[in-house]
């Protein structure tokens, strides 16, 4: 993990190196200042030398100046190193995500990736800054102060050494214990928030079943147990400051008593005693700081792990060594294709599928929920790779093509499709960067999207909100089809892409395809029989197995599932929803 993260420091190595260097410089200056103070008291005030007071005072200001310079530089480089580190982390992760295959994306989930790119990076940025600035500073400050204390009076400094050991042990104990409690309480806290989230989104269910009181009780019980856990954890933390105070106070009292005796005995000066007391504070504070660093680092370890997972993930679909850059035609051939999402699962999602589709054919695909219709088509453009068997496009194995070439020739309109924030033109040009306005409008005409776009006040310059929230489901689907058409693909796959479009428009789109892009192979997945019955041939899938493949009439005569579906929908469209047309 450290190696992965270390590589992300990149061009900020110099900053990462200079930060602790300047922090050490700052610590050294701050260690000298109390010593000069002692000199002012002893050789200045007690000895009655104003000259010495001025001289030492001047030196102290110089030291303060140095310290200021070092501290500021440390802060400057620390800021650069940590924010730069964060930038590199984000960039590397984002770059790697671009290479992810669908199964890589599925493994992390969208929400998981977003958290890693945002919250986790921020956590690491803060931890890194802390490490650079404090991890070196605190122990050095402790050592320096201890060294100076020994330099002044080995006898008195021994008290500090004992105090450090005792305080160190107690702090370590408290920190570990508190961390233990907190690591239990935070997941509970997340659960509580998750249950609020659940209630917010399911409020209609709660209210419909009149379960408000039930939910309230569930929540207050959870919040009660959370309260007790928090109290338990914080009771441990509450010992921190009194333990610290008692240690410091004990040192002060011991130094006052023993110091006074030594001063009277002539083995210590007043000024030296005062510097000793200052060092006491430095030592104890450094210790406190170390325990804080420990907590901070342990908290960010989880983030670091999550980030490394993304950085180290390798895409399971990569370009072949000597890729093909041209797709001959739109023919598709499945040869004994078996597919599993998870290599370990016993039952394959697709089982031994063999079929062949000619270029320019229109193929309907039908089957119940979970019959693996989407899985079948997703294999064609290598969104997933087959587990067994092979798929040929244009007569060659899909795995021999350059990925970009293949995906540009095989356009898929996904089931869960997404529009991006930007104008309609901008969204359409995802299909073809260089498409002219005229080409965009033609694609929209084919997808029957022109009618509603032209009714928008801004027409094709209408701004689409993130996720396409300002267009209806049916409008969104038609825009997505138009976007895919602009690729001018050899194969066009529509994965339930007209489900929110009314039957009449659906038919119109299919007719336009037949007239305008007859050479393009079309694969149409649909729930409605009417969407597929006019296709050249229809694939019937059932639980990942090819149950039938033929024309409407053939299937009606021979295929039981097809007949069943047909009868349950009978005549006409079997669908009342005009969807996006409204």
């Amino acid at each position, binding site marked *: 993990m450290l190696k992965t993260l270390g590589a992300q420091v990149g061009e900020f190595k110099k900053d990462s190196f200079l930060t602790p260097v300047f922090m050490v410089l700052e610590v050294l200056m*701050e260690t000298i200042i109390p010593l000069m103070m002692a000199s*002012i008291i002893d050789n200045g005030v007690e000895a009655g030398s*104003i000259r010495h*007071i*001025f001289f030492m*005072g001047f030196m*102290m200001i110089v030291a*303060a100046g140095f310290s200021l310079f070092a501290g500021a530089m440390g802060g400057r480089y620390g800021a650069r190193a940590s924010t730069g580190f*964060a930038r590199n982390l984000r*960039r590397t992760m*984002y770059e790697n*995500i671009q*290479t992810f295959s669908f199964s890589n994306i599925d493994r992390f989930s969208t929400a998981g*990736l977003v958290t890693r790119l945002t919250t986790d990076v921020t956590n690491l940025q*803060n931890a890194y800054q802390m490490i650079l600035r404090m991890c070196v500073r605190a122990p050095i400050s402790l050592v320096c102060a201890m060294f100076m204390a020994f330099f002044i009076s080995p006898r008195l400094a021994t008290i500090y050494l004992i105090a450090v050991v005792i305080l160190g042990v107690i702090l370590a104990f408290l920190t570990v214990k508190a961390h233990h409690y907190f690591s239990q309480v935070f997941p509970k806290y997340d659960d509580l928030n*998750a*249950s*609020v989230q659940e*209630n*917010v989104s*399911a409020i209609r*269910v709660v*209210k*419909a*079943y*009149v379960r408000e009181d039930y939910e309230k009780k569930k929540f*207050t019980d959870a919040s009660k147990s959370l*309260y007790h856990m928090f*109290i338990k954890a914080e009771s441990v933390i*509450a010992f921190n400051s*009194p333990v610290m*105070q008692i240690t410091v*106070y004990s040192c002060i009292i011991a130094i006052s*008593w023993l110091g*006074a005796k030594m001063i009277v005995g002539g083995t210590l000066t*007043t000024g030296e005693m*005062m510097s000793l007391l200052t060092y006491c*504070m430095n030592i104890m504070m450094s210790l406190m700081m170390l325990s804080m660093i420990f907590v901070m680092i342990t908290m960010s370890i989880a983030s670091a792990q999550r980030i490394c997972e993304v950085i180290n993930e390798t895409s399971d679909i990569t370009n072949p060594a000597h890729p093909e850059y041209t797709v001959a035609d739109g023919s598709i051939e499945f040869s004994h294709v078996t597919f599993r999402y998870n290599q370990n699962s016993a039952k394959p999602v697709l089982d031994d599928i063999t079929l062949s589709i000619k270029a320019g054919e229109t193929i309907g695909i039908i089957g*119940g*929920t979970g019959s693996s219709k989407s899985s079948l088509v997703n294999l064609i453009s290598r*969104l997933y790779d087959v587990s067994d068997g092979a798929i040929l496009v244009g007569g060659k194995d899909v795995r021999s093509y350059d990925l970009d070439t293949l*995906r540009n020739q095989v*356009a*898929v309109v996904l089931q869960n499709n*997404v529009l991006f924030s930007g104008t309609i033109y901008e969204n359409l040009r*995802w299909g073809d960067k260089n498409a002219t306005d005229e080409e965009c409008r033609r694609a929209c005409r084919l997808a029957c999207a022109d009618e509603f776009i032209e009714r928008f006040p801004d027409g094709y310059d209408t701004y689409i909100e993130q996720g396409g929230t300002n267009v209806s489901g049916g409008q969104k689907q038609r825009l997505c089809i138009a*976007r895919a058409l602009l690729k001018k693909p050899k194969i066009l796959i529509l994965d339930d892409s007209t489900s929110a479009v009314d*039957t*009449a428009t659906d038919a119109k789109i299919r007719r336009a395809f037949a007239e305008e892009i007859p050479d393009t192979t079309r694969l149409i997945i649909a*729930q409605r029989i*009417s969407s597929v019955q006019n296709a050249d041939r229809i694939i019937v899938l059932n639980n990942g197995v090819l149950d039938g493949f033929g024309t409407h009439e053939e299937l009606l005569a021979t295929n039981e599932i097809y007949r*069943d*579906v047909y009868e*349950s*929908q009978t005549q*006409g*469209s*079997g669908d*009342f929803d005009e969807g996006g047309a*409204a």
Partner: protein
Amino acid sequence: MPAGTQNAKPVHGPGPRGPRGPRPRIKNPGKLIARLMRYTLKNYAVHWLIVILCIVVTVLASVQGTLFMQTLIDEYILPLIKQADPDFSGLAAAIRRVAVFYLAGAVAAYGHTRIMATVSQGTMRRLRNDLFTHMEELPVRYFDTHSHGDIMSTYTNDIDTLRQMISQSIPQFLNSTITIISVFISMVMLNIPLTLLTLAMVGVTLFSTKKIGGLSSKYFVAQQKDLAAVNGYIEEMVSGQKVVKVFTHEEESLRRFNELNDQLFASADNANKFANILMPVNAQIGNISYVLCAIVGGILALNGFGGFTLGGLASFLSFNKSFGMPVNQLSMQINSIVMALAGSERVFAMLDEKPEADNGYVTLVRAKKENGRLVETAERTGLWAWKHTHQADGSVDYVELTGDVVFDDVDFGYVPEKTVLHNVDLFATPGQKIAFVGSTGAGKTTITNLINRFYDIQDGKIRYDGININKIKKDDLRHSLGIVLQDTHLFTATVMENIRYGKLDATDEEVIAAAKLANADTFIQQLPDGYQTMLTGDGANLSQGQRQLLAIARAAIADPPVLILDEATSSIDTRTEKIVQNGMDKLMAGRTTFVIAHRLSTVRNSDCIVVLEQGRVIERGNHDKLIEKRGKYYQLYTGNLAEE
């Protein structure tokens, strides 16, 4: 010497949300603070009093320790040096006194942190409970008009800033204030000119804080903006990552990301740089103040001006160190208190939302028939009655619950300006199956929102068994209706518990029977732990169709007299639907059902099909009648719309 953690030099880097971030604007802060104080003081007034006392003791213990330096040097060390045979018994007694004070300080420090834990966690608990119980009472309209992200952020971010304020900012604020006052008094007692010098240097610190902090704050605003841009872009692109892949758009996506990321780096670098520089600058101004006091104080002590002694100087120098810190802290605490106020404003806004109003007085009771008359009973008779207590004379009427629903000239709009239902008339006699068809936005779902009073109608009347539904207690009204919604929601619990949600006292056998009825039993059996399988994340491990089957089972177990199915089978394939339908028909025999669906097969066998268009009923009748009529239904049904 200074003691206690609060006098430590601040050596921590700025957090993600630096204390010098942009200050939110707050209307009427005085009122808000007063309300917040009332809220935190409630139940914990005595605790707070003890906390304040403890803080005073802690601070005084530290101050007396510092003052002791003077006594130690002037009254013991210096005189003792001159004695031939020094007697340390006086010093021993003095140190014992100091030790007692110190001990009291440490105990008080424990006391206040421990009590504060109770106070802050207790207040948080109450706040969470108050928020949640109040939220459960809010009308559906609230959830429809507020983004769920915003509601969640009240529970997480806003409550968190409040916790920080109560557990950290306020105690530190008190601590700083008390320290400043007592240190200031002690300094004035020790030496007035040096006090003035210290004050002047604190002024310099505040000035530099304002200058550098101002710069830093400027960049923090920029950083927040750039961060929002980067996060927004990540959110959008990663959500659409599969589309990015399909369109081989990776390079463009990366290019724009790098631009935004570099911009964020630039502003974050600057923001952190100035925040980091502020710390050493203030520390060194403090050191310089210390040195200046040492020089001036040294000269004063040397000449014995105004009886100023070496011991006095030693004590004063310690105070000088412990004075700058709290002043700086105070300005930081004020920032985080302002942040917390903004959070509390949102929390209170939610608490101030009006709960769902319910003026109903007609209740639902179990009943039995005695001599042809309905009588209330505790037995489970399967017979229900509306108990109608007349307000005028207190007499009680019982009306049998049958499921007769009538809409009489109903107008409704989610906002007053935009009516979505116009003059809707509807009558469903007990046992009928009524289907609504029509395009998206025709008002189908709206009608179901009105029957169970998620929303109240503007004009007209809805009658349930002849009773205006406004007179029925909402809880009782909803108990009598079963509803399966378009969006299925499941809870984090086992499959068993999820189904049981419809009837909390249902036995396992009843749950399984309901699951069988909904044809969910087969797939549940195949889950890793069967009925005991934990569902998480709204049933994320189930398919949409399976989730719908569970929702139907949940409604089935509730066994309501009236059932509303809003696209309840839309994700179930047509063959499975047929099986579910058979079970449902059995269940709903003799009961009223409202069905919304866009599938022909779902609605064809309804007793009455209502065709809606733009909030108006345009056709009604059974399937055969409507086909005969050759109107809108016929068009939709045959798909021969548009040009033919």
